[in-house]
């Protein structure tokens, strides 16, 4: 089993059945997994901010930093590796916020809204998700089976 850590702003795609992709400590970041069960190709992104317009140069260099550049890039990469967009099973976790967060930076919520919008444009539905709250989560995708799990401090491990 080879553990591939997908850090903040990173995108990783694979068709190696021994790979497990992991995004640790998701707070307001969104971790997204995509998996084609026929081609057995999968990928993961951990993006931190919703829109790339605040730093276009950074987005060019690291598209995985933003939802609006990273999610399309992830879809492109898995399709280039042989996945079919129609068959993709998409699952998401993260988008947490601090307690009583009603001030300026609703980044978690906005990260999630951007995800819904981009997947909507691509006619893709989210199959399962674990979003919001004040939790820190670890998201894992097993390439051999497409199994996706989320581990959190007081929720234990759940399968999405």
């Amino acid at each position, binding site marked *: 089993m080879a553990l591939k850590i997908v850090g*903040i702003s990173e995108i990783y795609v694979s068709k190696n059945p021994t790979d497990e992709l992991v995004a640790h400590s998701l*707070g307001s*970041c969104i971790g997204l997994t995509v998996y084609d069960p026929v081609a057995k190709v999968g990928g993961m992104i951990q993006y931190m*901010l919703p829109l790339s317009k605040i730093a276009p140069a950074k987005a060019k260099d690291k598209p995985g930093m933003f939802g609006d550049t990273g999610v399309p890039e992830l879809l492109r990469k898995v399709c280039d590796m042989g996945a079919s967009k129609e068959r993709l099973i998409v699952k998401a976790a993260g988008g947490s916020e601090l307690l009583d967060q009603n*001030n*300026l930076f609703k*980044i978690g919520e906005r990260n999630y809204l951007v995800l819904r919008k981009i997947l909507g444009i691509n006619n893709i539905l989210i199959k399962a998700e674990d979003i919001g709250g004040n*939790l820190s989560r670890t998201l894992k995708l097993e390439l051999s089976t497409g199994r996706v799990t989320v581990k959190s401090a007081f929720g234990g491990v759940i399968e999405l």
Partner: protein
Amino acid sequence: MNIRESVVSKVTSFPTLPYMAQRLLSLTNDPEADLSEIGKIVQYDPALTANVLKAANSAFLGFSKPVESLTEASFRIGTNWVFQIAVSSLIYSNLRVPAEGYELSGEDLWRHSLAVALMAENLCSLLKAENAGAVFTGALVHDIGKIALSEFVAEEYETIQKVVTKNNFSFEEAEEKILGVGHAEVGAIIAENWRFPKPIVDIIRWHHHPEGTEEPTVGIDIVHVADSLCLMQGLGIGRDGLQYRCNNDSILRLKLSNDLIEVAFSQVVSSLSNFEDMFTDKPVPNKVRM
């Protein structure tokens, strides 16, 4: 002895920082201090000098000819950089210990502290705030209380977490209720024992509750917001997770906009990975002059 008394007695026996470290950290609070003074202190500590040179020669800065002395490092990368590397290296060597009660490894705690320091520095520069040296250092040590409080949190974790969930307390408020003292106050007591300058002690003490101080400063507001942002983003966090609050008045006082915060985020994540690379093992140039 009640829990608060046990905690405080443990804190007074908390290991002291080396004398050089105390001198260097004290200097960070003096905006009048000639920054080259820092070099004079660093040069008497071979391990610190080696770390600064190692960092200055890291792949990230990409010099073709190795930097071999502190003077050269100051000249090439700027004294401010040398200062930041020296202080970070000092904290890295002395305070990279786990806080198991929070399920934080030494690396996690270090990563969180560094992220908050870089975020605070970024906000200082965007807001043109004064005394950025003390803010950077205060941010780097804001969670030292977690190291000392860790074993008590481990024992009472279930009860603390229950109070958070039931009463909508922040994790720190629940620590205070159950243990009689929270990690911010514990950190401030340690920093006072180490004779840290008052602005740094105040940053540590009020980093979760800037409304508590009678003397609000930009530094306290900046570190509070920087910490909130890094917790929210999940940068080096433990099982206390995102169960903290960000004070809206701090955001208003700093006049922070959404865009400004997001720009700061995008910059901090890049510099965080560069800084982390600097502290991983890289060869030190053979001819080290001090």
